[in-house]
């Protein structure tokens, strides 16, 4: 005979606590009711991001409770010189008997920004996993079919040195500019979008580094350390390096993001990736490198650029500070355009290195310039005259 000892487990109980089981005040109120959506219907993205980062100007009645040594806490709006409507009104003062109400939501224009890519955790992992899976498959397939043996000898060196050098740009900007900026923006939507931009760049950096590792294993003549040397001493890269470092040294988060995604990327990033590597690779027998570079191009052109334009376009048409912001953005263009243009030119020697030559540097630069012009015009900003000097 066996004795069964009763196991100690919680007992399920029928509670009928599901939606619709009863009618009472609020029983149908199934919508986050503390913000208004950009479109008619609240999106899933908005539901999981909007208002997570609080604001003393509307609901945060007791204010920030921890400050830096200067007594300022949270996410000060003057961490950028740009302004959004409503922000110059004094912060609501809470005192004995003042009540807790601040300005009516959203209180100022920064809260109106929405990431057009609607990024939150599900999209981040889905998109990024797709990219790494795709790249891994491409590289595996290339290895199995000995595709790397088709490469022209100079191209092997080109990929080792110059494609390799680009990983440092991605890494430096990904960490010290975009990840850094995720602490600086005024709302959760800004900071989350910036964190996503950061993951794109850091992933691209690692993609290139690990690709470089594979190539060192697959191609005898491939020098896996050449990228470090190119980055630290090749004169063709010192301009890029200097301006990348200068971008990370920028105090104003919005200036750093604006200068990177709207000036540096079209004039230098796309020039190198789209107008050099992508053009030169096939003729030199390389069909793999373009898939890596293409993944980064896609992240930039289809996601990060799109998001950045949506971040800055409202500033130019802000109902209170349009003029102020236009002046600031114009001055940022004025200081970053010449630097980036000069740097673009320092890359010119790269065009003559592959055996099979890519289209002319000047043609590539023209394409990059017209890309830049289109972006700037979309934001209703003036193209600085230096572009065509």
């Amino acid at each position, binding site marked *: 005979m066996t004795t069964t000892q009763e196991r100690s487990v*919680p007992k399920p109980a029928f*509670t009928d*606590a*599901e939606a619709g*089981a009863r009618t*009472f*005040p*609020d*029983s149908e*109120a199934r919508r*986050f009711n503390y913000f208004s959506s950009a479109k008619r219907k609240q999106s*899933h993205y908005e*539901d*999981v*991001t909007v*208002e*997570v*980062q609080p604001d003393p100007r509307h*609901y945060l009645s*007791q204010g920030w*409770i*921890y*400050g*830096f*040594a200067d007594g300022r806490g*949270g996410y000060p709006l003057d961490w950028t010189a740009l302004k959004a409507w409503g922000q110059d009104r004094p912060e609501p003062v809470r*005192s*004995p*008997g003042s*009540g*807790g109400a601040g300005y009516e939501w959203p209180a100022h224009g920064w809260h109106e920004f929405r990431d057009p890519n609607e990024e*939150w*955790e599900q999209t981040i*992992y*889905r998109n990024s*996993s797709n*990219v*790494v899976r795709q790249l*891994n498959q491409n590289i595996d397939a290339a290895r199995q079919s000995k595709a790397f043996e088709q490469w022209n000898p100079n191209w092997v060196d080109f990929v080792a040195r110059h494609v390799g050098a680009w990983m*440092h740009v991605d890494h*430096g900007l990904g960490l*010290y*500019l975009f*990840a850094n900026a*995720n602490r*600086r923006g005024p709302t959760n939507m800004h*900071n*989350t979008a910036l964190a*996503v931009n*950061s*993951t794109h760049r850091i*992933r691209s*950096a690692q993609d290139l580094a*690990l690709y470089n*590792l594979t190539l060192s294993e697959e191609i005898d003549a491939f020098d896996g*350390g050449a990228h470090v040397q190119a980055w630290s001493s090749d004169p063709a890269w010192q301009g890029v390096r200097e301006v990348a*470092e200068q971008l*990370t*040294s920028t*105090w104003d988060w919005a200036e750093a993001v604006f200068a990177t995604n709207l000036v540096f990327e079209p004039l230098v990033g796309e020039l190198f990736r789209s107008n050099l590597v992508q053009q030169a690779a096939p003729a030199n027998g390389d069909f793999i490198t373009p898939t890596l570079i293409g993944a980064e191009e896609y992240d930039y052109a289809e996601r990060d650029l799109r998001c950045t334009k949506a971040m800055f376009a409202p500033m130019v048409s802000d109902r209170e500070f349009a003029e102020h912001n236009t002046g600031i953005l114009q001055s940022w263009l004025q200081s970053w355009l010449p630097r980036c243009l000069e740097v673009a030119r320092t890359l010119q020697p790269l065009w003559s290195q592959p055996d099979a030559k890519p289209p002319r540097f000047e043609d590539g630069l023209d394409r990059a310039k017209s890309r830049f012009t289109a972006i700037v015009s979309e934001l209703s900003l003036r193209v600085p005259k230096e572009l065509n000097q």
Partner: protein
Amino acid sequence: MSRQSVAKAHQKIQELSWEPAYHEPVSHYGTDYTFRKAKKKDPLKQVLRSYFPMEEEKDNRVYGAQDGAIRGNMFRQVQQRWMEWQKLFLSIIPLPEISAARAMPLLFRTVPNPELHNGQAIQMIDEVRHSTIQQNLKRLYMNNYIDPAGFNSSLRGFQNDYAGTIGRQFAEGFITGDAITAASIYLTIVAETAFTNTLFVAMPGEAAANGDYLLPTVFHSVQSDESRHISNGYATLLMALSDESNHQLLARDLRYAWWNNHCVVDAAIGTFIEYGTKDRRKDRESYAEMWRRWIYDDYYRSYLVPLEKYGLEIPHDLIEESWNRIWNKGYVHEVAQFFATGWIANYWRIDPMTDEDFEWFEHKYPGWYDKYGAWWENYNRLSVPNGHKPIAFEDVDYVYPHRCWTCMVPCLIREDMVMDEVDGQWRTYCSEPCHWTDKVAFRPTYQGRQTPNMGKLIGSREWETLYHNWNFADIVKDMGFVRDDGNTLTAQPHLDLDPKKMWTLEHLRRCPPFPSPNVTLNEMTEAEREAFRADYVRQGPAGRPAPAS
């Protein structure tokens, strides 16, 4: 990938970083700690190529479970007593998560070892994951649980209620002040390493016992990222320890961070687990038992104590006193009673305790009934409106407490209350360590040493100040805790959703105005204030007035 190639891949990505030659990255944050630049190993050994698919796979399991729960009508078996406290918990926790993401760059310039930055960037992404996956869970609850009120107003409630403010320390503390104090000691060494076990392991267990298996699914998935973050913190801590001039600051920060986490996390999670459950099996662990195992044994004895030999000064006295507060001074019970006393200021409903609950409490915490039983019987008696006022305005042998200026939990262990004039204002503190945190630790000098980067405690820290002498109907309207008929309160001191049994603004209109304890304290003469103090420390337990002397 084979193990060898993981190691090689990891080695390779170390080549990405470079020493700036022309411009240094911007330095936005300061620290009074000093770090020597030394070659370090990245403690994470994680490359994004494997990280993203791994996380996507974890996600698929979470979202699959959510679909299953809805198809399987999980909410027919969910205990409302439990779900109501999730309105508070899930209003708080997405901010700490996202703040952890925001905290990572505080370490970039202050800890000059690029090998660690890769791990910090991955933690940043993890934290975006945690914040939004938790918001998503809350959204699911709002859509599928019987009473959406309080979920639907979640982040507004969080921002303007005192309970949310208490929770906010566990977020703002990560992102301001001295970068190492905030993003390393408070966030990773104490909050993540010590207290996420109770948050993300104990809470889910209790949720499952109350019919909710989605909270466990989400939070176990979150917790599985946590060990990486703990390694980040550990690596930074060892580096800090290697420079002796940091030891004094480490000792300060560990005292502050430990005590603040105890005050805040044990108050909230302790209440959810002990008062938010219907599972009264005598052999289920109490919060005190869990705390002893996970925090005292696993964190204190196994993680902290071994660091003593490297020169880490461990706040043994504060760890013992936290246990003393939980086990002997009824900390969690006092907090739960306060939440229930102040139910009118909440955005969730609090179920009264029954005889079965009483029995369990008495079994787990001998002597509980003598202290708290009569008060909870009163709570039950006063839960449905019937000509009386809410319990806070009725005579139930309870003195409304003063708030701790530092941790903002009220001074509930009355004999420990400290009163002092700090920064020209009379303040009350729940305990001596909270007094020390404000008066000594968060200052630009510490034990004669310059600490110019140390943060400041700021803000309107006493919530009651804002509503000094208001009527509670106006307070609740100001906060927006009213249901869609414009009259019924979001909060209720019971679970009955029969509209006739629910409290409304009209009921609150009949209450007297509500004075701020701190404003009142500052209006007193010196003699009155001293009499107040002498009386206060003789009050309790369970908020009882001081015995006539």
